[in-house]
């Protein structure tokens, strides 16, 4: 479903080249549960951003569901992100002035989905994610775990093909982190492809497939754990 071929991402900082991704090839099948680990600065986030179409490679090609997405226009990229990619972040990135429900509905709002459908879909997720008593609260009235649930609900409301999580538990205590991991795994069991970048081996080792990145290269790939 996802196929990277010899993808490189090079940043130049003060005239010096930093190879954040060095000819990485990677294929991910639908429904896979993949964790990406590695030392700080090894290129994990860069890899995830490329997968999530937030960044474009300097070289190599990227096929997403059979479509080459390396040379799409801004509008096409946005549309693809909207339909196929769900993102969650370490710092949640909820909009503080919007309620939990409004935050969850944001991708639908941007995609121009009518209000009634938005309400229907967000209600289902609010129910399923244990946020039923909090839909009208604003982010600062929610706990960290609840915030990340809202963020996950927002990421999956468009029914994407893949959920990309960059340190989703990095800002949470152990028990709410565990809750978040369970929630994501639950979504994976129902068929959602899941890619998690993490520093926490305990979380990383739960994944069906584990990848280790060092200096922009995949040094270890263990299909099936």
């Amino acid at each position, binding site marked *: 479903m996802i196929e990277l071929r010899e993808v490189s991402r090079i940043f130049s900082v003060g005239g010096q080249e930093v190879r954040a991704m060095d000819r990485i090839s990677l294929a991910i099948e639908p429904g896979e549960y993949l964790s990406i680990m590695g030392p700080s600065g090894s290129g994990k986030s860069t890899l995830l*951003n490329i997968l*999530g179409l*937030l*960044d474009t490679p300097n070289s190599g090609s990227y096929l997403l569901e059979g479509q080459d997405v390396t040379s799409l226009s*801004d*509008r096409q*990229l*946005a*549309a693809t*992100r*909207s*339909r196929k*990619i769900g*993102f969650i*972040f370490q*710092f949640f*990135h909820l*909009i*503080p*002035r*919007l309620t939990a429900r*409004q935050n969850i509905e*944001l*991708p639908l*709002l*941007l*995609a*121009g989905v*009518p*209000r009634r459908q938005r309400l229907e879909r967000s209600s289902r997720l609010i129910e399923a994610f244990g946020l039923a008593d909090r839909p009208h609260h604003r982010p600062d009235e929610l706990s960290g775990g609840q915030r990340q649930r809202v963020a996950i609900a*927002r990421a999956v409301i*468009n029914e994407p093909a893949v959920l990309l999580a960059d340190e989703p538990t990095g800002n949470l205590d152990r028990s709410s982190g565990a809750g978040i991991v369970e929630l994501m795994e639950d979504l994976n069991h129902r068929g959602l492809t899941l890619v998690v970048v993490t520093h926490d081996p305990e979380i990383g080792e739960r994944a069906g497939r584990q990848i280790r990145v060092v200096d922009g290269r995949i040094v270890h790939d263990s299909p099936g754990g």
Partner: protein
Amino acid sequence: MRPLDVIAFSLTSLGSNRVRTLLMLLAMSIGVAAVVLLTGIGNGARLYIVDQFASLGTNLVIVIPGRAETAANTPATLVGETPRDLTLDDAQALSRGEPVRRMAPINIGELSISWRGRERQVPLLGSTASLLEIHHLRLERGSFLPEEDMEIARPVCVLGAKVYRELFGRENALGELVRLGGFRCRVIGVLGSEGRSLGMDTEELVVVPVAFAQMLLNTEGLFRILVEARDPAAIARLKTHIGVTISKRHHGEEDVTIITQDSVLATFDKIFKVLTLTVAGIAAISLVVAGILIMNVMLMAVAQRTGEIGLCKALGASQLQIMVLLVSEALLLSAIGGLLGLGLGFGGAWAAVQFYPDLQAAPPPWAIAAAFSTALTTGFVFSLLPARRAARLDPIQALARH
């Protein structure tokens, strides 16, 4: 995104930073209010002038000695000749014609008037009985100038309301003898106090028969002759009549200027329209200032909301969508500010009318439309730059700066 959703989303964003929003609304609304109010006052002044002329009677034609338009070019002025005076005989001749309804010769000057030791400098106006009608004067008591041959220098006078008050207080003036210049003359009437027509404060006038005025002022000529046409359709014929009559009497030279109320009115109308446009333009500058403020505040807002913009991009918003969102926000702000400004402007105009009922300060429709669309245009134009900057943000960096 659906238009209603865009508006709702913009409103939440405007609502989340009240101070910023209020500041921009204030700037916008003051700009719009200034345009509305100033054009309203300008327009009111124009209507006031037009009204004043209408009350004078629009069938009036004014004959002034000398050719105003071509004065500089005639051989007569080149050799230093002064134009021929208009005389009472000219006036007499002008009054005999089919298109003429009424005629009043006018002489003006300044003299001292005194009664029992009280003395005052007053403008003197010499004319005939017809002036009362032609100039829409109102007589408070007594009678106006007698209807008789205008060559008769009968020593009588009609006092303006203020002159009467200052000389006589509350005492009876009718029949009293006053001293006017070097002559004694009898008071036969007093004018009403509201008679105020363009260029002359009738409250302060002393009106005497024209021949008497010529004697007092020691002149043969007339200041001007007012001729009233039978009806508006007769004005053109009246002008020819005047031209022909004068040139016949002045050895073939038509050495007078003929002014119709229409032309004066048109000139004033034009002047005030330009004036109104000018103040509107000046006021519009404040709208541009408001626009620059909007741009600055929006640039700040874009910097503040970098994370949010990056997020929207990560969630599937295109550059165009981000631009639309931010521009809509500015447009919404301008529209609300514009509406507030219209309210404020009309409120101001209303207040102006309360204070000066004479000045019907009514903002013209074009000014309302112009002010509002200028507000929207400024909002639009000045939000483009911040919106473009936002649209081009790199989502990764935008999110990282959280």
